[in-house]
């Protein structure tokens, strides 16, 4: 089973975070929710591996 990477892996974390917030600027709650949903699906496809995705979903649910 592949393991979810819980170590830092994002190149330029501050830039990523700023880009993530910027895309939501001026959007309604509904539009933002739609963007987030699409983003989850796009990233999930990139990951592909069911083991990793299941671990990621479980980790997100932990809060």
């Amino acid at each position: 089973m592949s393991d979810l990477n819980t170590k830092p892996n994002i190149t330029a974390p501050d830039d990523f975070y700023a880009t993530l917030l910027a895309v939501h600027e001026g959007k309604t709650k509904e539009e933002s929710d739609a963007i987030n949903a699409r983003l989850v699906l796009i990233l999930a496809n990139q990951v592909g591996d069911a083991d990793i995705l299941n671990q990621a979903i479980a980790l997100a649910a932990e809060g």
Partner: protein
Amino acid sequence: MLDFDDRYTLAHKIYPYEKHADQDKAEAVRHPVVVVGGGPIGVATALDLGMQDIPVVVLDDHEGIGMGSRAICFAKRCLEVADRYGCGEPMVDKGVVWNLGKVFHKEGQIYEFNLLPEEGHKYPAFINLQQPYFERFMVDRLRALQAEGKPIEIRGKNRVDAIEVKDDHVVLDVMTPDGPYKIEADWLVAADGANSPLRDMLGQDFTGKVFQDSFLIADIKMKDVEFPTERWFWFEPTHGSGASTLLHKQPDDVWRIDFQIGWDVDRKEEMKEENIRRRLDAMLGDVEYEMVWSSIYTFQCKRMGSFRHGRVFFAGDAAHQVSPFGARGANSGMQDVDNLGWKLGMVLKGQAPEALLDSYSEERVYGADENILNSTRSTDFITPKSEVSKTFRDAVLTLAAKHEFARPLVNSGRLSVPCVYDGLSLNGPDSLPGAPARTRVGAPMVDAPIGDDWLLSMIGNRFILMTIDADAPESLDVDGIEVTRLALSSKDNPELAERYLGEAKSAVYLMRPDQHVAARWAHFDTASVNRAVNIATARA
């Protein structure tokens, strides 16, 4: 003359009531098997048992086949079962095969797909065919078997009003136009439909999820219009209220349109022709058509806890119900019969213990759960139950319009495929390293061309030892069960090699009478095969 009203209109009155000698006997006559219900599942049961020379009586409270297209999508496995009963070919000859599907969201098409069927199968992945045709071909076959002397009876206008279950038989109170009579059966198959009166009479549970939704179905015949043979599915169509609309073609230039119209509808109002036409006109535009049939139905996803209750078996909709998405109703019912027929046959012939019959419930409950799961998932996608599920659903549809990666997530009903009985009691060893997963132990066989014939036409109705590039005796007697060899070669047969050998150099497969894989090895070994036959018949 005493009579009772039909609950529905008939398309074909083909087994009119006739008084039977049983009705005048002072004592109830005992039959080995009585089937209650003359729908597709009941008739298929009669074909299976009759072909095994087991006397079977079908009781139906009507005198023929009900009107209306109803189940219109018959999948490959179901057709293969029908083929084993000798009536698959007319179904495919009459049916419509389509490969191109289009998916719409709101006003526009978001993408189309081609099913690109795998080559080397006798039967297509599925056909569209009105249910009365499907039933008619089976009853035709039943009549042909009767003419050959097979011990099958079908009695129209014989309504079961009461049942008494004894330890070793059941007693039925049957009502006819000539009044009531009693009949006894060693074994009873209840194939009396979704509202199964027998299930109620026996006080059996039927639990699950009721979906609060209704569908308006309209069958229409286009006038002077060449409509393509494609399946069109709309999510949230703008042409009328409702969560989804499905359009697909049936034989005789008839088109089926399913409008999902929600729960709080005035059925009487919706069924008025002008209101149905209003929906159709909004969808089809300026097209002339005549209306053939229409109906409204609601659905549930439910199953019984067990499909065997002593001497009584439940099959088809009586045992389990699913949503219509994915065509898993009639298709899975045919698989119930496929599963029950040979087991009941072997027990009646004294070749296997009654314990074998418990495996019917074990295997088909497993199948029903898989079908309910798939159909529930489709339903959740088509009619999202929460705000967040709607957000994700819409995200999938938005992405699918532009990006291929999201299309596998679009779920407008998955093709009905038979389940694999993974890890269940009748499975023998899976000892063929490098072999394909799709033909693993518990799986239904995958067809392949063999010369001018088909693999599935050569296997079924008894235990077969299929060898590929391997030696084995021509036949074996395993404590009264005959196992016959089918010797095949992978030379010049890439489909057979790909589907049954994979990386393996040779193979020995033990096939059940219902064309499921019971065990597989690289080489023949008497003790191993004997043991696997005993496991597959609940004798070990």
